[in-house]
């Protein structure tokens, strides 16, 4: 059988203005369906994908921000947000959507998916991956 690989998707573009954010999310969901060990990192303008309260009614585009809340169901439970990128935009963890997953090993306890990490911590996490995809 196939070997489980550690895949990380790195998101550094804002949503809606370009197609990168939605394309990445779709690829992540497909990858997750194949039972790989998938994590995501949000750096630079990618941070903006996670802002809460998105409402696209006036611009006639699909609001895909609710889809990030399904990541936990797809067993994508590691979502890293770079602290430096967050701070460069005057934002805090509180400005982002609250993403959670249920930990099967702990009687389905609800846990936070988002972890705010420094650049150097994120660099270390990237070094542990088998495959990295940039969007």
């Amino acid at each position, binding site marked *: 059988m196939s070997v489980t690989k550690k895949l990380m998707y790195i998101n550094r573009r804002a949503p809606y203005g370009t197609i990168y954010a939605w394309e990445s999310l779709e690829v992540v*969901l497909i990858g997750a369906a194949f039972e790989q060990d998938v994590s995501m990192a949000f750096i630079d303008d990618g941070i903006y994908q996670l802002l809460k309260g998105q409402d696209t009614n006036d611009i006639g585009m699909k609001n895909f921000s609710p*889809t990030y809340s399904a990541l936990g*169901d797809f067993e994508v439970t590691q979502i890293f947000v770079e602290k430096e990128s967050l701070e460069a935009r005057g934002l805090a963890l509180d400005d982002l959507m609250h993403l959670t997953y249920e930990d099967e090993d702990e009687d389905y306890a609800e846990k936070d998916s988002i972890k705010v990490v420094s650049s150097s911590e994120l660099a270390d996490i990237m070094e542990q991956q088998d495959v990295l995809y940039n969007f």
Partner: protein
Amino acid sequence: MPIEVGGKSLETDEEGYLANLSEWSEEAATALAEAEGIDMSTNHWEVVNFLREYYEEYQIAPAVRVLTKAIGKKLGKDKGNSKYLYELFPYGPAKQACKIAGLPKPTGCV
């Protein structure tokens, strides 16, 4: 090919998925199911309604593995397994049930 429902013609794509999510109705679901050779029972509706609620909340259709787990949680362990779901939707629960629910083809679907 468009399908005829209650005197209205509903557009579908080449694989038979409804082109317009908002045109879905229970009548349309019954017609879509018929085209798949499925006679809708209470058990079928349970899954179809679950999919519609899931899509409403997350804006995507769940992959089959996610569907199975979520159904098990919501409707009980005896229903949260692929055997049960494949009995209801022999050509793939995610694919066939999504079509009947009027949703787009699921991402990474079976």
